[in-house]
């Protein structure tokens, strides 16, 4: 199984990211339908793309939360105030913890950014520049998932409200985690 003019990996990644112009995407598909070797290469990228897409994002919207509730999952919701160190325990029977990061002034924000760091090292674990938020309630929802147990437990979350012509307004939440 070989190909004389193989599609390069960067193009396949762009294809699976939906980042090719329609004519380029059509050309990739025309090649893939005639080529076993490139179909195999495309499958390897598709596996990664599907796995990334299949993840529940760490920051979710109210609509996402309603969907999760409808699935019958065991959810625990924690109201987390800013500036107060709040330890949370992920109990064994719980499927998902929802941290309600409250006390935020988000009205008029152009966008909200959420940065999740390891408190002790400052290492950024996750940075969401386009986080969903509830301006009315002044709240951002973080979905803490059991498989996050593989990450460091001392978590600090910074929420930045971006407004044109002003420096971002930052609010920090220290949330050490215990996994039962």
């Amino acid at each position, binding site marked *: 199984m070989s190909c004389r003019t193989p599609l390069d990996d960067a193009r396949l990644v*762009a294809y699976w990211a939906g980042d090719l112009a329609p004519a380029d995407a059509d050309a990739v598909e025309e090649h893939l339908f005639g080529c076993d070797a490139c179909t195999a290469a495309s499958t390897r990228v598709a596996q*990664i793309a599907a*796995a*990334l897409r299949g993840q529940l994002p760490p920051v979710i919207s109210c609509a996402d939360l309603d969907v999760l509730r409808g699935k019958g999952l065991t959810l625990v919701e924690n109201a987390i105030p800013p500036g107060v160190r709040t330890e949370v325990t992920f109990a064994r029977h719980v499927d998902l913890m929802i941290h309600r990061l409250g006390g935020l002034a988000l009205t008029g924000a152009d966008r909200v950014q959420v940065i999740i760091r390891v408190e002790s090292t400052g290492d950024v674990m996750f*940075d969401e520049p386009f986080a969903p938020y509830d301006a009315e309630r002044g709240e951002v929802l973080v979905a803490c998932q059991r498989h996050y147990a593989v990450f460091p437990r001392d978590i600090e979350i910074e929420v930045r409200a971006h407004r044109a012509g002003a420096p971002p307004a930052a609010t920090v939440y220290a949330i050490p985690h215990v996994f039962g």
Partner: protein
Amino acid sequence: MATDAELARCVAEGDAAAEAELCRRFAPRVHLYGLKHLRDEDRARDLVQSVLVAVLEAARAGRIDDPERIDRYILGTSRNLALRFRAADTRAEPTAPAGLDVAGALPPLDALDIEALLRCLQHVEARARTILYLAFSRDKSADEIAEALAMTPGNVRVVRHRAVAQLRDCLGVAEAT
């Protein structure tokens, strides 16, 4: 090994083995097309079945004018049926003709171990991790990501590509056999 065109001609002559080989060869390609455009494993598998049924029926009836371009014919059928699936926004209920073994022709796309994925993501540089997330979970284009992260779109594409390669290596995603 028979070419795709030879298989199409044999199907027109009633060769059951050629039908099976044509399905084996094209099922993974239609499946990937379905995953890309329908974004759902079940619907992608439905698409495979519907496309292969339509193609085999056309080939048996001698309605494929140019067997040399059977790959384009199958791609065209995939595009048309995927559009219909999306328009209907529902799963199709294709009826397989006797002898069409789609399940046998279509090995499942191996799902990756989520904890392993997260461990591998930890080894990806923070900005690259953000780019992966924005590209694949939030469906942001390279231009949109570049604007948010103060990078150039070209740089976003390079980082995205390298990060996928790093994940693939870390996860040991199998090379084609």
